């Protein structure tokens, strides 16, 4: 059974496609084309939710995306549950499961409703005035209660099972809104072949024409005209139609974001389809044809279920063929509600209309409605609504021209359609930073100056007559496409008479009744009065103090009523109290839509080296370094980190180890001025470095602090192979390019990143030479022919290589650069020979330990952006004779030369088995009162197999003078005593590398 309020005929629902949905456990039948709202109304269900603060029963206010009350939780299956869906937007599809929200234990009986009784206390901002005693009670007692009461629906608790898509798109003309103005604009804009996008938030295009049964355009019924217009647009290859697509954000330089809904409305959505797609459109021109929103009227208990906007009653009757009530009273201050009343009467609904305007101010619509036999009370006001869970009637009274209220009478009603006039939907215009202008006749803000390439048309621009709307839309579309075509449409005239009234006159004490301004947030007229009384005079203040306009409808139904009321209280013209600035999004957008595919493996690229797969097969554990995954250590059996690292370290010191150094940044610096460029970028000198030799280089930021370091090889007079830290690679190249292009364009040098051209295999340890010798051709590996810090080119395993003899471990070592695709094969060839030499793969942790034993620093670990070369004891590297290099001047600033700077030292704990925490703080005396001044901190700390004890590096104030002295270091529970030493613990003379 399709519901007792389903009208026997008419509407745009597909009666041949029955669907059924579940609401609070009840299965209800409807038709394809229904929204959840129209389907519920068909079954005479209006009471569908509880308000935010007072938990008052609420029904539908509107028929669209401005709905503040009817928010349901929707269950589309596992991982597809989400709260706060507007019943007036959600399309009914077979098997859809919905629940009402914000009540306990049930919608009908809700404990929270006590708030409505206590509402005299819970006025605007009451929480600022109390809950302050006792002091600790706020977050332990009061706040949890307030939070539990607030919050509407429940957040999903399972990962989202849907997928989402993203699309960047460009067009010449983007038309937002496919009502009469938008359709006309799209027709005109696409005539000359320009790329036109037409987007509309609704499932069906046509806007208000979809529920207009009486107007004709160019002699055709409105809906026939819509069908023809859409057919015409579809036939044009240069037009893209985007239904179910809400333009929610208007950003700089005509960048507009749309959310397209693709599957929520489908009975069986194909698995491959995304649920929603974010369109990021860059438009040459934009036409905003976003229509207007009808305003509620403000009177006592105007929030009762069954009280809707007048136009919404018309939409439910005409478009969805459901009767929101059988006895409907319309209340209005203008002509538009008469059309709704006429259509309702035509559908066989008992209609009464109450017009606040005196008889004389009403237009021909009055006679037209009376002619249909409907009762029309002009010059009447509404004093209050009756009923709690459903409106049962309206108390009305005559209003004398002097404003005197006559004797009240009650009109029985099971539905009320109210109309307080119209508010052009200027949200997107305002987001685009367009300036608004107040139009007193319309009693509304309308677009004034556009700031971006954009124009508004139709109701969004304050035009309410159908013919004018169509002509304006057409002209706007043509102009947006660079033309100047205009077209006059013959359309049925639209009665637009209207006299502004917001708060209906009443004889009740306004301070004691609840006349709602913001329905969802339970902001009443008296709350606004209170805010103004307390000195909150700007709209922004009133908004923040009362929370009016801050609900999920973003104030679409409440802003103008709030503004008008504040202006009225202050007796200022409405524009003087300002308008609230509109922020994206126009309607709420799921996070999923915004992030699109950026989840799981596509959240962030995971960079892996050519050897990564091999390391995985060996059971390596990996760590994140920037975007890279690096092999951290290679556990054998059930070794933990420390056991594995101890074994790996010993292997390198005694035999030989193999390490994947591919992630180090590499930059090829080529040109006759290459050495001069190096001289200006690095602190050291490069002119004298001979081809075939390597040098450790250090570079500063202009502020004098260390930026990065690395070994640099001079391959030829005009060619350097620079290496950087793994994380620093992009930063360093950008730094170099900046100086080259903007400061020294005269230098004949070019920079190219070769980081990923090469796989880099470090072979380190006493047996390194023996291990690789047979695989290497074209290079004499003999110690004197190929000394430490030299580079040679030749072949390994038949593959061209740049072979570096360098060491970051303190052992004899080579770094084998081969073209990346050969990396794994060369690695495996070396590994295959390794057995006899005790070859052991090692990871970054072992690398860190080995270099720390030698006192080699790691930029980003020993340094933190506030460290100079001298702080690290590397002052000697600075070629002071050079007239200038990046950062040189800053090194001469007072504080960088001041005594007592933190300097790199070694730390040996009295207890050799104790491994300090990296980041542990160092103090002179553990027994000082708090706050204790820290001399510095531990930058690196490990168990050293070579020293058979713990070692640490640290930055300590005046550290070099403190060598030999005692200090204290923080431990998780306390302090421990330690001695300051030189920052090298093994082979301090550095002889082993020359083996």
């Amino acid at each position: 059974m399709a519901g007792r309020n389903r009208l026997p005929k008419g509407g745009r629902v597909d009666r041949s496609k029955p669907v059924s949905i579940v609401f609070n456990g009840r299965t209800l039948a409807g038709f394809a084309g229904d929204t959840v709202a129209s389907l519920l109304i068909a079954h005479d269900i209006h009471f569908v939710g509880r308000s935010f603060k007072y938990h008052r029963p609420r029904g539908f206010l509107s028929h669209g995306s401005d709905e503040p009350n009817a928010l349901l939780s929707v269950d589309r299956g596992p991982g597809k549950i989400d709260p706060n869906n507007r019943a007036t937007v959600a399309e009914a599809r077979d098997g859809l499961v919905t629940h009402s929200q914000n009540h306990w234990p049930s919608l009908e009986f809700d404990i929270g409703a006590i708030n409505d009784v206590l509402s005299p206390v819970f006025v605007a901002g009451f929480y600022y005035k109390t809950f302050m005693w006792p002091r600790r009670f706020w977050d332990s007692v009061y706040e949890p209660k307030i939070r539990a009461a607030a919050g509407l629906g429940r957040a999903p608790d399972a990962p989202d099972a849907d997928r989402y898509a993203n699309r960047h798109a460009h067009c010449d003309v983007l038309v937002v809104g496919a009502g009469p103005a938008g359709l006309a604009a799209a027709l005109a804009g696409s005539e000359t072949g320009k790329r036109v996008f037409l987007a509309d938030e609704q499932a069906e295009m046509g806007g208000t024409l979809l529920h207009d049964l009486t107007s004709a355009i160019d002699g055709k019924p409105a809906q026939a005209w819509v069908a023809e217009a859409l057919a015409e647009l579809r036939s044009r290859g240069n037009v893209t139609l985007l239904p179910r697509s809400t333009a929610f954000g208007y950003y700089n330089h005509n960048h507009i974001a749309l959310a397209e809904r693709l599957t929520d409305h489908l009975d069986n959505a194909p698995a491959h389809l995304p649920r929603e797609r974010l369109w990021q459109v860059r438009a040459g021109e934009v036409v905003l044809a976003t229509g207007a929103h009808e305003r509620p009227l403000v009177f006592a208990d105007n929030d009762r279920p069954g009280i809707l906007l007048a136009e919404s009653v018309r939409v439910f009757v005409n478009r969805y063929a459901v009767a929101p009530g059988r006895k409907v009273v319309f209340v209005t201050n203008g002509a538009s509600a008469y059309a709704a009343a006429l259509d309702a009467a035509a559908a066989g609904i008992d209609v009464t209309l109450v017009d606040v305007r005196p008889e004389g101010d009403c237009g021909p619509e009055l006679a037209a409605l009376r002619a249909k036999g409907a009762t029309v009370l002009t010059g009447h006001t509404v004093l209050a609504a009756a009923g709690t869970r459903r409106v049962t009637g309206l108390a009305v009274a005559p209003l004398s021209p002097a404003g005197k209220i006559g004797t009240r009478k009650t009109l029985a009603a099971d539905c009320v359609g109210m109309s307080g006039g119209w508010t052009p939907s200027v949200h997107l215009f305002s987001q685009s930073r367009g300036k608004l202008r107040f139009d007193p006749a319309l009693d509304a803000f309308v677009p004034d100056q556009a700031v971006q390439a954009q124009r508004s048309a139709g109701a969004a621009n304050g035009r309410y007559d159908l013919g004018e709307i169509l002509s304006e839309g057409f002209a706007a579309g043509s102009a947006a496409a660079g033309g100047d075509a205009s077209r006059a449409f013959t359309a049925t005239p639209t009665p637009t008479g209207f006299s502004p009234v917001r708060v209906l006159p009443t004889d009740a004490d306004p301070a004691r009744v609840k006349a709602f301004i913001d329905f969802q947030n339970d902001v009443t007229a008296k709350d606004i009065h209170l805010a103004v009384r307390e000195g909150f005079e700007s709209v922004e203040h009133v908004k923040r103090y009362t929370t009016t306009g801050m609900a999920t409808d973003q104030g679409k139904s409440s802003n103008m009523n709030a503004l008008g009321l504040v202006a009225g209280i202050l007796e200022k013209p409405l524009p003087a109290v300002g308008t609230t600035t509109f922020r994206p999004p126009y309607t709420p957008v799921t996070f999923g839509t915004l992030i699109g595919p950026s989840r799981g493996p596509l959240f962030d690229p995971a960079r892996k080296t050519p050897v990564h797969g091999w390391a995985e097969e060996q059971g390596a554990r990996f760590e994140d370094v920037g975007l890279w995954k690096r092999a951290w250590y290679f556990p054998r059996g059930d070794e933990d980190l420390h056991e594995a690292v101890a074994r790996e370290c010993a292997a390198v010191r005694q035999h030989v180890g193999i390490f994947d150094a591919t992630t180090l940044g590499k930059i090829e610096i080529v040109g006759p001025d290459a050495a001069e460029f190096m001289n200006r970028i690095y602190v050291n000198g490069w002119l004298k470095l001979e081809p075939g030799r390597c040098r450790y280089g250090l570079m500063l930021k202009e502020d004098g602090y260390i930026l990065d370091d690395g070994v640099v090889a001079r391959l030829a007079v005009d060619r350097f192979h620079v290496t950087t830290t793994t994380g620093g690679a992009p930063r360093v190249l950008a730094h170099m390019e900046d100086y080259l292009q903007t400061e020294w364009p005269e230098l004949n040098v070019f920079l190219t990143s070769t980081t990923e051209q090469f796989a880099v295999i470090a072979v380190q340890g006493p047996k390194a030479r023996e291990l690789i010798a047979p695989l290497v051709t074209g290079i004499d590996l003999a110690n004197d022919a190929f000394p430490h810090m030299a580079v040679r080119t030749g072949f390994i395993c038949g593959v061209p290589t740049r072979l570096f003899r360098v060491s970051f471990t303190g052992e004899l070592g080579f770094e084998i650069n081969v073209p990346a695709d050969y990396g794994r094969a060369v690695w495996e060839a070396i590994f295959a020979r390794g057995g006899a030499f005790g070859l052991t793969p090692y990871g970054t942790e072992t690398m860190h330990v080995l270099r720390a034993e030698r006192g080699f620093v790691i930029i980003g670990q020993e340094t933190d952006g506030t460290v100079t070369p001298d702080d690290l004891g590397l002052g000697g590297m600075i070629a002071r004779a050079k007239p200038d290099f990046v950062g040189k001047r800053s090194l001469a600033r007072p504080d960088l030369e001041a005594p007592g700077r933190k300097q790199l030292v070694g730390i040996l704990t009295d207890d050799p088995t104790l491994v300090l925490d990296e980041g542990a703080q160092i103090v002179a005396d553990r027994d000082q009162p708090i706050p204790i001044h820290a001399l510095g901190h531990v930058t690196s700390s490990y168990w050293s197999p070579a020293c058979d004890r713990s070692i640490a590096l640290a930055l300590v104030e005046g550290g070099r003078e403190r060598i030999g002295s005692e200090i204290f270091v923080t431990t998780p529970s306390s302090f421990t005593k330690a001695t300051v030493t030189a920052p090298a613990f093994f082979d301090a003379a550095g002889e082993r590398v020359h083996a």
Partner: protein
Amino acid sequence: MLLIPCPYCGDRPEIEFRGGGEAHIARPSDPQTIDDQAWAEFLFYRTNPKGLMAERWNHAHGCQRWFNALRDTVSDRILESYKMGEKPIGGGRA
């Protein structure tokens, strides 16, 4: 997202670019000869104007060239862009 006119590649989306802050702050030719305050002003002090601003951009994910642009920091409208070493014509783009 801004639409930035690269002098080499034409209008491109902002995410292809890296901002470089205020333009035309020349690095002193002989930094060693200027005092600490003057050096500090070169390093750190900025006009940070509310209104028209000449700023540096690098088309990092495009041609990778540095260039300058004139932008209004209130409307964010970009009037023109020009190559390193060039001067703005000050007219603004059509």
